[in-house]
């Protein structure tokens, strides 16, 4: 394995560890990153930066505090929440804090000093809070010790607050800016206690986000907006059929079109690009270029065939995910049985900013400017594509116009570098929206077969859920498929808190040629819909109120019970609604957090659905920026509603049928429900994510509300294919 391959594979693995971990978080207890980094910088032959306390924190003479952020900013807000958490421990003056994105080049140079750049799996806080807090707390102690040393007093007699160290007895004071140089020379203390949530005065607040002002005047620079001297533009066409190859193209037809400089085939023969002075020239010529594709076997695959294979799969035993007690025995004896099958389609991410990357390849190395969820992955991809060692690559991380899991992949980086290498100039590659929707890494298609047995009193005696669907890991990271099980495919089924003594959860893998990937909330995006809709079915079959029924299964778990109860209370559970309206509840845990939704809907006589109100209760354990969490909850609701109402990628002749927002519509302003957001925080040992959990149970809450309003049970998505008319 070459160094580059090794780096690429490590990076991919890290991304997945961050993306698909089902609640584990990072293994703790390894070397503390970033502490003593100034020394590492010296050993790398670089001058240490003045006032650098560690790789995360630089304190200026003017008392400004720069805090580095290792996760990409795609709207999820961690470029503010990460500095908050560091600043909380540092106890600096928040008004003097600036953020900057950490250097992935330094990270490579200094033994992964920033741990991970992967921005997925709702990991930004929950996967880094220990080392971020340690970086802040350690620096605070170093500042205190520097002051104490200068004053000749014991450090324990000094206090750090709002960027000032005070000797309590004498009232002497020194600002962090004045102490920074001396403090940076003090050995970092090994054990520093963290501040408890109860005394937080920076974390737990909702200061204005750092990235917002640049996003109201057009000055925020996304990958799409990069300007590099001498830059030309590229438009790309990839094989419409996944896995197809370019057979031939007629360059002469476009060579003399205005601005056109080159027509290039991409390495691997899966795509052609036209390079022109300006983007519109490149796009116009690209559309005019005749291309003959070798579609291969995949050109015959249809949606119906993919679905038939899934349906057949449900009749196979599959592989064991979790078997407790004796399902078969208990089910045979059940007084009442409930069975159902559910379906969830392929979905595209459809980030607002289509995929793009700017690359420059010179004799000295490679430089890329890119919106990516993993700057380290982008670096590895660029090195591999250019055939240079990683230390010859510079990555400029730009703001992301949405990510949702799509930008964890680096295909656009590989392409841009491949084109730049051939044309010998900096190239900005821009995908059309059509390329973006037709060349995604889709949320897998999936089905579920569920069975529940109730005793005569309506108590749950037996429960089974078999998932049959396409595996992300089998496509991206086959070594993570364990005993035939892709943990991401079954997330949200077997690992929920419900008490189920006799249960079985199984998995049948049915892969297609369609590329799949991590789509916001991953396996729970299908399985929370399926599980929580079915639990609702079972509650009704048991003749019990859906909240009451869940309470009975959750009594042993305080966090889940609190979350459920708060949602029921805030969501006015049990209060009457007009005819045609209904209320539904659903609860799920994924990415370390618990979410419970209560949705209110109205379905009119013609079957038109309006989601009127959604109450979201989240238990993320801790809350660093509550207003941002509310924003993420609103976001999760909209992303889920889009998928539920409209979302469907279908395959015909081996290719995606949808191409743009006219045939892959999304939720619009006038369909937005009123979203109310609440926190039910356990504040214990665990920290949960906030970017994905609020999406997962929403579809079930709405489906259960539709049932309450109409008596119609939704078992297949999207709703545009369902008739909700009651008459």
């Amino acid at each position, binding site marked *: 394995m070459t160094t580059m391959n090794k780096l690429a594979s490590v990076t991919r693995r890290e991304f997945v560890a961050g993306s698909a971990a089902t609640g584990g978080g990072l293994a703790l207890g390894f070397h503390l990153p970033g502490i003593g980094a100034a020394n590492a910088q010296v050993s790398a032959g670089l001058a240490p930066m003045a006032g650098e306390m560690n790789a995360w924190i630089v304190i200026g003479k003017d008392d400004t505090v720069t805090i580095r952020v290792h996760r990409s900013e*795609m*709207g*999820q*807000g961690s470029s503010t929440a990460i500095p908050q958490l560091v600043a909380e421990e540092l106890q600096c003056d928040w008004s003097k804090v600036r953020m900057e994105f950490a250097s992935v080049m330094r990270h490579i140079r200094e033994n992964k000093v920033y741990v991970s750049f992967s921005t997925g799996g709702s990991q930004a806080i929950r996967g880094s809070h220990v080392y971020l807090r340690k970086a802040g707390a350690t620096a605070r102690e170093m500042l205190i010790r520097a002051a104490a040393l200068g004053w000749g007093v014991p450090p324990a007699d000094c206090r750090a607050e709002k960027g000032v160290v005070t000797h309590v007895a004498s009232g002497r004071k020194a600002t962090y800016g004045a102490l920074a140089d001396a403090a940076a020379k003090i050995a970092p203390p090994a054990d520093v206690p963290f501040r408890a949530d109860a005394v937080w005065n920076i974390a737990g607040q909702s200061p*204005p*986000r750092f*990235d*917002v*002002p*640049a*996003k*109201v*005047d*057009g*000055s*925020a*620079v*996304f990958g*799409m*907006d990069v*300007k590099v001297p001498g830059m030309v*533009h590229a438009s790309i066409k990839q094989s419409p059929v996944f896995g197809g190859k370019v057979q031939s193209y007629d360059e002469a037809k476009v060579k003399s079109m*205005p601005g056109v400089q080159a027509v290039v085939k991409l390495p691997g023969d899966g795509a052609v690009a036209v390079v022109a002075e*300006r*983007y*519109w020239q490149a796009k116009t010529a690209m559309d005019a270029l005749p291309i003959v594709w070798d579609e291969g076997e995949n050109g015959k695959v249809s949606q119906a065939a993919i679905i038939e294979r899934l349906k057949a799969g449900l009749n196979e035993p599959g592989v064991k995910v979790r078997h407790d007690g004796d399902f078969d025995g208990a089910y045979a004896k059940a007084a009442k049985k409930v069975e159902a099958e559910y379906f969830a389609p392929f979905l595209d991410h*459809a*980030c*607002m*900013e*289509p995929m793009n990357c700017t690359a420059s390849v010179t004799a000295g190395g490679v430089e890329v400017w890119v919106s990516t969820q993993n700057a380290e992955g982008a670096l590895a991809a660029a090195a591999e594509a250019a055939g240079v060692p990683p230390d010859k690559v510079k990555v400029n991380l730009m*703001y*992301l*116009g*949405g*990510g*949702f899991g799509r930008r964890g992949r680096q295909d656009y980086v590989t392409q841009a570098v491949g084109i730049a290498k051939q044309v010998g100039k900096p190239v900005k590659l*821009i995908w*059309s*929206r059509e390329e973006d929707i037709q060349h995604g890494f889709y949320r897998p298609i999936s089905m579920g077969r569920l069975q529940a047995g109730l005793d005569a009193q309506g108590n749950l005696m037996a429960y089974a859920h078999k998932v049959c669907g396409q595996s992300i890991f089998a496509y991206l990271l086959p070594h993570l498929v364990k005993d035939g099980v892709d943990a991401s495919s079954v997330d949200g089924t077997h690992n929920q808190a419900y008490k189920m003594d006799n249960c079985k959860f199984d998995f049948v893998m049915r892969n297609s040629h369609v590329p799949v990937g991590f789509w916001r909330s991953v396996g729970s995006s299908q399985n929370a819909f399926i599980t929580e809709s079915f639990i609702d079915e079972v509650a009704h079959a048991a003749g019990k109120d859906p909240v009451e029924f869940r309470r009975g299964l959750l009594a042993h778990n305080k966090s889940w019970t609190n979350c459920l109860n708060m949602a029921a209370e805030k969501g006015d559970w049990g209060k009457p609604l007009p005819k045609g309206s209904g209320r539904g509840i659903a609860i799920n845990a994924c990415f370390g957090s618990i979410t419970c939704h209560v949705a209110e809907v109205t379905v009119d006589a013609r079957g038109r659905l309006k989601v009127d109100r959604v109450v979201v209760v989240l238990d993320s354990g801790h809350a660093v920026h509550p*207003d941002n969490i509310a*924003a993420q909850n*609103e*976001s*999760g*609701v*909209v*992303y889920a509603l*889009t998928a539920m109402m409209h979302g469907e990628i279908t395959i015909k002749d081996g290719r995606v049928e949808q191409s*743009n*927002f*006219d045939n892959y519509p*999304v*939720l*619009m*302003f*006038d369909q*937005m429900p*009123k*979203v109310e957001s609440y926190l039910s925080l356990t504040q214990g040992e665990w920290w949960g994510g906030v970017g994905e959990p609020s999406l997962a149970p929403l579809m079930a809450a709405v489906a259960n509300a539709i049932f309450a309003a109409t008596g119609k049970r939704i078992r297949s998505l999207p709703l545009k294919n369902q008739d909700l008319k009651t008459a």
Partner: protein
Amino acid sequence: MIDLKVNGKLHQVDAAPDTPLLWVLRDNLGLTGTKYGCGIAQCGACTVHINGQPVRACVTKLAAVGNGAVVTIEGLSNDKSHKVQEAWIAEQVPQCGYCQSGQIMAAVALLQTAPKPTDAQIEAAMTNICRCGTYQRVRKAIYRAAGIKA
């Protein structure tokens, strides 16, 4: 060379007359605040004003602009002080932010014709797509800019 009035300045633009205004703004004039999202007037990320009217720059040919006065997000103010920009910051509207130039331009155009818009007017005017789901905050920010109590 084609004359183009943008943000109060007259430019001479070297582009084919059928080039969409969006790409003239971005590639010829470097005004990258106006975004490409779909190219078919569906998403509104490219919304600019021509003579005060909101238009989708991705389907507006350069030749069709003529003497029209184009205003882009960069032309609203020099210092984020337009009341709609201030409202957007106060309500912390943007998430990823990619669609927000278009959202803001649509909102500014709305408030020019309806200083105290009704919900129905807001819903009719705000047809821009946001994948992050900021719609609720967009509405609050419009209320705030219009001085409407929610």
